[in-house]
């Protein structure tokens, strides 16, 4: 084979191997190990100097104990389920918030579209962590939102939003909104306006024309947007730990605590491996959807 072509093909595979497969295999190996009071905090470790016997001993030391442990303590599966529920609801809310924005952008005058796009992307220019922290100032009981509502007379006792799941939903919708808007906008923007005129000409009202033509044509964008929001929110750690308080159960937080509070690397790795497997299913579905639309 042409060597230049070989290099070209090898590059993405090398990338995947170095940055995905190798780290994954390391995590997988740790998840099969046992905790140890050592550095690193697990055993066995790979020791080539012991020769063949060392390798045999190494593989003998691996077992599925940690995965069994995940099924024994209900904290884990409850966290997975709660994460999935939160991610699914948040994705749906993001869709509800994002679709009208994307629709409005695609109907805006062409000279305005780059500016609107810029405004959607603009928040990415500051740190996500800072933006999530900023929500504490808005949502806490003496925060801006409560002050506004109290001042306007809508409520007479401050709402406790911070440290609830509502705050987590707000945080996820806020953070991931651009990921929903951009693919939907892309699918709406390339739609031919005359399709709507044709639908009206054939007897549709504006509203039926939307449901019969615009909505089905934006479906690929909706699916892409939903995956782009659902996948990262499932493993989300920052938002639930800053805004969700102690009562919000999410697997990202459990993972963090296993690693850094318990220093139980093998169980944490097992949690990560299962999370990855849960994520692979929607990713594969997403890929297949993309291929069908190609």
């Amino acid at each position, binding site marked *: 084979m042409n060597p230049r072509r070989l290099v070209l093909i090898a590059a993405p595979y090398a990338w995947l191997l170095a940055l995905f497969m190798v780290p994954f295999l390391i995590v997988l190996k740790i998840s099969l190990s046992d905790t140890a009071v050592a550095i690193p905090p697990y055993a066995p470790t790979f020791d080539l100097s012991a020769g063949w016997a060392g390798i045999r001993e190494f593989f003998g030391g691996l077992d599925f104990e940690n995965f069994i442990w995940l099924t024994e303590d209900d904290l884990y599966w409850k966290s997975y389920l709660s994460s999935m529920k939160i991610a699914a609801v948040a994705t749906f809310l993001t869709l509800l918030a994002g679709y009208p924005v994307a629709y409005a952008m695609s109907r805006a005058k062409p000279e305005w579209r780059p500016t609107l796009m810029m405004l959607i992307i603009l928040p990415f220019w500051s740190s996500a962590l800072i933006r999530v922290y900023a929500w504490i100032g808005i949502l806490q009981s003496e925060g801006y939102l409560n002050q506004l509502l109290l001042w306007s007379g809508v409520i007479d006792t401050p709402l406790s939003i911070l440290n609830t799941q509502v705050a987590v939903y707000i945080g996820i919708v806020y953070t991931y909104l651009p990921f929903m808007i951009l693919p939907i906008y892309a699918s709406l923007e390339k739609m031919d306006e*005359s*399709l709507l*005129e*044709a*639908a009206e000409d*054939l*007897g*549709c009202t504006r509203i039926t024309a939307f449901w019969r033509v615009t909505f*089905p044509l934006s479906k690929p964008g909706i699916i892409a947007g939903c995956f782009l929001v659902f996948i990262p929110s499932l493993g989300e750690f920052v938002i639930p730990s800053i805004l969700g308080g102690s009562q919000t159960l999410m697997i990202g937080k459990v993972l963090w605590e296993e690693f850094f509070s318990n220093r139980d690397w093998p169980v944490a790795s097992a949690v990560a491996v299962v999370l990855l497997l849960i994520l692979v299913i929607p990713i594969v579905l997403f890929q297949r959807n993309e291929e069908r639309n190609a």
Partner: protein
Amino acid sequence: MESKPAPAPFAPWEDAAAHPLIRFEGVTKRFGDFTAVSDLNLKIYPREFFALLGPSGCGKTTLMRMLAGFETPTEGTIWLDGQNIAPVPPNKRPVNMMFQSYALFPHLSVWDNIAFGLRRAGKDKETVRARVEEMLRLTRLDQFARRKPHQISGGQRQRVALARSLALGPKLLLLDEPLGALDKKLRQDTQFELMDIQEKTGTTFVIVTHDQEEAMTVASRVAVMDAGRLCQVDTPQHIYETPNSRYVADFIGEVSIIEGRVAALGEEAEIAYAEGARPIVTRTGGAALEPGQSVFYAIRPEKIWVGAAPHPDRINSVEGTIVDIGYLGDVSTYHVRLDTGQMVKALMTNAERYAASRFTWNDRVWLSWSRHAGVVLAS
């Protein structure tokens, strides 16, 4: 063999008692400062194949969009079958439109595209199926019913668009540059197909086009538009042979225009066009002329005979030099500079092989034409 009686010529516009399907009454449409259509009056009759012809920006598309309901007139009234259609939204009008881009729904199959309007009208399943199949047969699309629009050719897409817009059985079908996206050969075939379908369904067609050949081929009447006004509304033959202005004469087909002055006026007029040259003798065709009036004499290239000597039977003969020859196979176009300086185009049929080589560049030739060949235009 059965012999059919010759059908009466279709000319409802000459019948004062005929009821027009569409009547534009003083219709003006402005977009901000720009006047797209200006004080327009027009009648279109049932079963007509009516063509709106003009360059881009002449207002023909605006006129059509007002009929479809996508634009409302700024002033004036449009009557459809005796009803003022200004307050009727597009989805309630008995008018359908075939879009220039076809505007087929990409997520629906050919079958579902055609059924779209019928389903919105709340027709029952069986009626929808029967009507869609009828449309598929009419447009010869039976075997493509299950395909998506992106899986068929441009010509097939054009037919789907036509089938979809005819499915509801509209009183009036609007066609916006329906053949613009097709290549020349396919376009010519499709023109005849369109005429055939128009005849079979008996629907009134209004077609918008900038292609004069297309308008001449398909239409019963042609309206030539310029800058929001109708220049002339007439049958293709009248538009071609008796244009009422230089603009129309020039827009439709090839023409040579000679500027002159009425030198003598009787049953025939003499048009003096240059110092020392014999005036052109022509019939006036009933045009109101005055002696001394400055006029334009328009003559089509195929009406001029090119020869080595003046044609004995033709009253007008002038000498000139060939400056350009366009050989098109069936015909040759000669660009001749008259000794008085005017450029005149003449067209000769190449009836014999190698006949085209009779004259060549810089040859001296005589151009001859009859008193009926050209028209005198005041503007």
